[in-house]
């Protein structure tokens, strides 16, 4: 050891500047070998700081090795080496990095600093990693600091800024430096400046940094609050906080006795039963609270039970104290700036949430539109309630599932499934119209029942074929994920795809209805069936085609819904009532009406969910109530059909 020391001394004496720094870390370790070998959290700080400040390129390696159990002390002379496993023993390097042979494991004592010390070492290491030549390591270090920041990081971070060459990392470092400044800087003016420097920023990290600054705790004082206290607001028991809570604060502060709870009183009474009575009151009479209170007071007077505060005493004590919300952060300027910044942030976040909500509402509206448009066509043109419409949706979803079983490629299978679903449900719709509904045109109420019969039969049939468990209908990979505008406004690609699909269908149906021969005939039959028939239109054929078209669109809606919902035999149930609502609210027999209905119901549902986010059930309840009321005022829907057909 002495030779080593001499060697170091020689090196120190001979080499200027850099060489001088090179030995410094080793020297620090040498000077504090005892502390290094058995570090304690309280006293090791200066040693670590000295190592970190030494400027020695070995310092980082020594610190890292220390934290990772890579240092060992030779038992014979107490010299500390860097170690790495080599065969049965350790390969040694001295603290300047030079190889120093191999030692048996039994000759060395590994240094195992405890968690607290390791934490200190890691903090000290930050400045080295922040200046690491590898940008990936620097980025890692930044993330680590952002995740678990402490006051000690501020200084190294500031030092690391001037040397940063990567512009992205530089920006990150600047942002992190401001975030740390506003939390840990000793100078409150600098903190306020840092808070204000964020301006219109709404980042989650900023909110996470600001929120702790504005946390409060409740406290009570019988005299004016201490000078250093940073008061958020004064509280008056009974108006600002309940008296019970104020009393609890006093109990916590040790300024008041526990309240006499019903249970403690009861236990005390039971403990003092003597000769069939308690405190002079007969046991049998103790079956109401007033009698028990009398008994307890009697016991209190006899000194058998601890005194408990009566209501008057509680009120008097409460009146003597002043209650405050105190900021845990002592600096008023900082808390004021932080609250102002937070309230500005919450305004902006609110606006963004509204935008996000609007996106959600649009996507929900497009789902409802897809589900309801088929129903609107059949209901509007033929006056037929198709209770099996939900089952057509389910049928479409199962068609998509079966197609995926045959074609494994998700993209192709979706492209095949859409027309397949249309074809299957079109056929089913036409068959149902020919076999059942045709006979019931004069009895519209009974179509409701007949189609309901078909609906339960189809549902059970699907259950028999596909089982009760949910079947997956997987979206292609390019529909995964979401389009995020920022950390609040985001919409998944599937919902965008459904929106596009709904728009396409709106255009398609508008085109068919307004620009084709079929559409003309459909509108004619809708307006006046007999007149249309006498003009040479075959109403039976039109009814059949319309019903098929409506059912086919339900099938396509089924594929779209199956992409994000689970495909079960009860899939249709979830949408049938909503679809009816959409059609009825929108106005029967009008595509724009259905669109308006879907938009109204989608927006309403999302809006109510936003007001009461914990409870979607309540949202649906309120929505249906609203619809029932709405129908009171516009029984024929938003866009009422004009003409003979509306005359009934």
């Amino acid at each position: 050891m002495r030779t080593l020391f001499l060697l170091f001394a020689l090196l120190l004496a001979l080499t200027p500047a850099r060489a001088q720094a090179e030995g410094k870390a080793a020297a620090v370790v040498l000077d504090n070998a005892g502390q290094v070998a058995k570090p304690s959290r309280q006293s090791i700080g200066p040693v670590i700081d000295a190592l970190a400040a030494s400027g020695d390129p070995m310092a980082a390696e020594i610190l890292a090795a220390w934290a990772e159990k890579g240092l060992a002390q030779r038992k014979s002379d107490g010299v500390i080496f860097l170690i790495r496993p080599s065969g049965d023993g350790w390969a040694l390097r001295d603290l300047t990095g030079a190889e120093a042979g191999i030692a048996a494991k039994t000759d060395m004592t590994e240094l195992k600093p405890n968690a607290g010390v390791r934490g200190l070492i890691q903090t000290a290491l930050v400045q080295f990693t922040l200046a690491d030549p590898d940008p990936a390591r620097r980025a890692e270090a930044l993330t680590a600091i952002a995740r678990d920041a402490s006051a000690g990081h501020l200084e190294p971070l500031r030092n690391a800024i001037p040397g940063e060459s990567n512009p992205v990392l530089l920006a990150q470092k600047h942002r992190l430096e401001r975030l740390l400044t506003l939390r840990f800087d000793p100078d409150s003016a600098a903190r306020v400046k840092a808070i204000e420097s964020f301006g219109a920023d709404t980042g989650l990290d900023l909110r996470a940094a600001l929120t702790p600054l504005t946390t409060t705790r409740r406290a009570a004082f019988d005299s004016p609050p201490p000078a250093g206290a940073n008061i958020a607001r004064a509280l008056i028991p009974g108006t600002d906080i309940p008296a019970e809570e104020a009393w609890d604060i006093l109990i916590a502060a040790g300024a008041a006795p526990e309240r006499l709870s019903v249970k403690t009183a009861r236990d005390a009474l039971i403990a003092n039963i003597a000769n069939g009575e308690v405190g002079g009151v007969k046991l049998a009479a103790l079956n109401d609270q007033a009698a028990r209170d009398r008994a307890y007071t009697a016991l209190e007077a006899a000194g058998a039970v601890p005194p408990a505060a009566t209501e008057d005493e509680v009120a008097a004590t409460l009146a003597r104290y002043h209650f405050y919300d105190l900021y845990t952060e002592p600096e008023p300027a900082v808390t004021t700036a932080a609250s102002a910044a937070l309230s500005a942030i919450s305004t902006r976040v609110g606006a963004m949430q509204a935008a996000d909500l609007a996106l959600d509402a649009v996507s929900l509206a497009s789902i409802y539109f897809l589900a309801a448009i088929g129903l609107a066509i059949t209901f509007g043109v033929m006056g037929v309630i198709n209770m099996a419409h939900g089952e057509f949706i389910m049928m479409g979803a199962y068609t998509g599932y079966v197609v995926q079983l045959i074609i494994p490629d998700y993209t192709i299978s979706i492209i095949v499934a859409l027309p397949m679903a249309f074809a299957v449900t079109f056929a089913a719709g036409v068959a149902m119209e020919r076999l059942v509904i045709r006979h019931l045109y004069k009895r519209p109420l009974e179509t409701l029942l007949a189609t309901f019969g078909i609906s339960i039969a189809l549902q059970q049939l699907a259950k028999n074929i596909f089982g009760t468990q949910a079947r997956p209908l997987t979206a292609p990979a390019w529909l995964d994920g979401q389009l995020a505008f920022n950390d609040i406004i985001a919409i998944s690609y599937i919902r965008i795809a459904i929106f596009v699909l709904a728009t396409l269908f709106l255009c398609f149906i508008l085109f068919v209805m307004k620009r084709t021969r079929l559409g003309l005939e459909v509108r004619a039959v809708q307006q006046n069936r007999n007149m249309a028939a006498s003009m040479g239109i075959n109403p039976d054929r039109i009814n059949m085609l319309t019903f098929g078209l409506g059912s086919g669109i339900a099938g396509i809606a089924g594929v779209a819904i199956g992409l994000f919902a689970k495909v079960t035999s009860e899939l249709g149930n979830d949408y049938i009532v909503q679809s009816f609502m959409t059609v009825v609210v929108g106005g029967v027999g009008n595509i724009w009406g259905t669109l308006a209905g879907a938009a109204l119901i989608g927006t309403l549902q999302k809006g109510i969910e936003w007001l009461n986010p914990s409870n979607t059930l309540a949202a649906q309840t309120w929505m249906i109530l609203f619809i029932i009321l709405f129908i009171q005022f516009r029984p024929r829907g938003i866009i009422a059909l004009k003409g003979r057909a509306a005359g009934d």
Partner: protein
Amino acid sequence: MKHSFFAKNPSVLLFLACLALFTIAVTVMSEAWGLSLIPTSFVKTLGKTLCLCLVALAMDLIWGFTGILSLGHMAFFAIGGYMIGMWLMYARTEEIVILSLANSPLPATPEEIRQGITSQIFGVVGSSELPPIWSFAHSLPLQLLLVLLVPGLLALVFGWLAFRSRVTGVYLSILTQAMTLTLALWLFQNDSGLRGNNGLSGLQNIPGLGQTSQDVISIWLFLASALALALGYLLLSSITSGKFGSVIRAIRDDETRMRFLGYPVESYKLFVFTLAALIAAIAGALYYPQAGIINPAELAPIASIYLAVWVAIGGRGQLWGAVLGAALVSLLSSWFTGGRAPDLPLGFYTIKWVDWWLILLGLGFVCVTLFAPQGLAGLLQRLAGPLTPRRGGAPLGPDPGALQEKEARE
């Protein structure tokens, strides 16, 4: 009035006689008072079926006679059940709590008893306060009043809103369905105060009758259900056979014409709607003590549609048809879905009725709608054609169920 009510309506006496015979037969064969030929669980099933027949009568009044296809009357049925269930559960829990507190060294205070009941009933939904809607649950008369008041007022308000804005036909059906769904969704929430989707349970234990065996209780409830059905049948047949019956049938056949003739159509419809809701609520209040449990799933819109199915299969516009349909379909339904029906091997495939019953019911229902719009009652009447007097003459309304000329003259 030239003839007495029964002389004009011989079918009423016939029906009451059949019901009385059936009731006596079941009582004699029950485990409690007779030959122990019918197990208690089946007595309960029969009692429940009688309640379903009663609600089917109400449905027949509103749909078969007035032409309003309400898809909400099972909701009133369930509300009636909830109202009686609240008392059953509260009083039963009170007994248990008092019993358990009797062992403690101090006699219990009313407050402690309330606390005990609350934590027993609402522990599952994590609430420690007795919700305000349970304020009357301690008293049987008050709660019995609520059995009538709550569904009655709900039907009155809803019907008033709907009929006043002239919501008719399928719109009204959808609206009533929406009302049912709203109620079900509301009840599904834990903070509705009715134990969310746990529902109310243990209703088969009648408070104060802890020593009485279920055999006896089931027979008493069965008899009560039979009595309610008989009274309901009498009430409805007297309503539908008189002048009032003619008016509501006329409303069914041509509402606009009735309005122009000066009849307050809305008031008639509102009365029928509310009366049907009251009958449904009474049926529910008798049904759920026999079922033992009620939860929001009982309010699902599908239940009301099944009600319509029973009435349609049995025969609309015929009171005994509705009873027949409800009894037949609900008993068959429980027979098929209970797994007691034998499988049907077809060689290549074995039909398990548990899986295929709903398909059979659905298709059968389509066939009834298409080929026998008057239901089984219509078929039976056609078979028994020569026995009933041929009234002849043209129907007075467009619907085949309308009064015919001779019938109207009587």
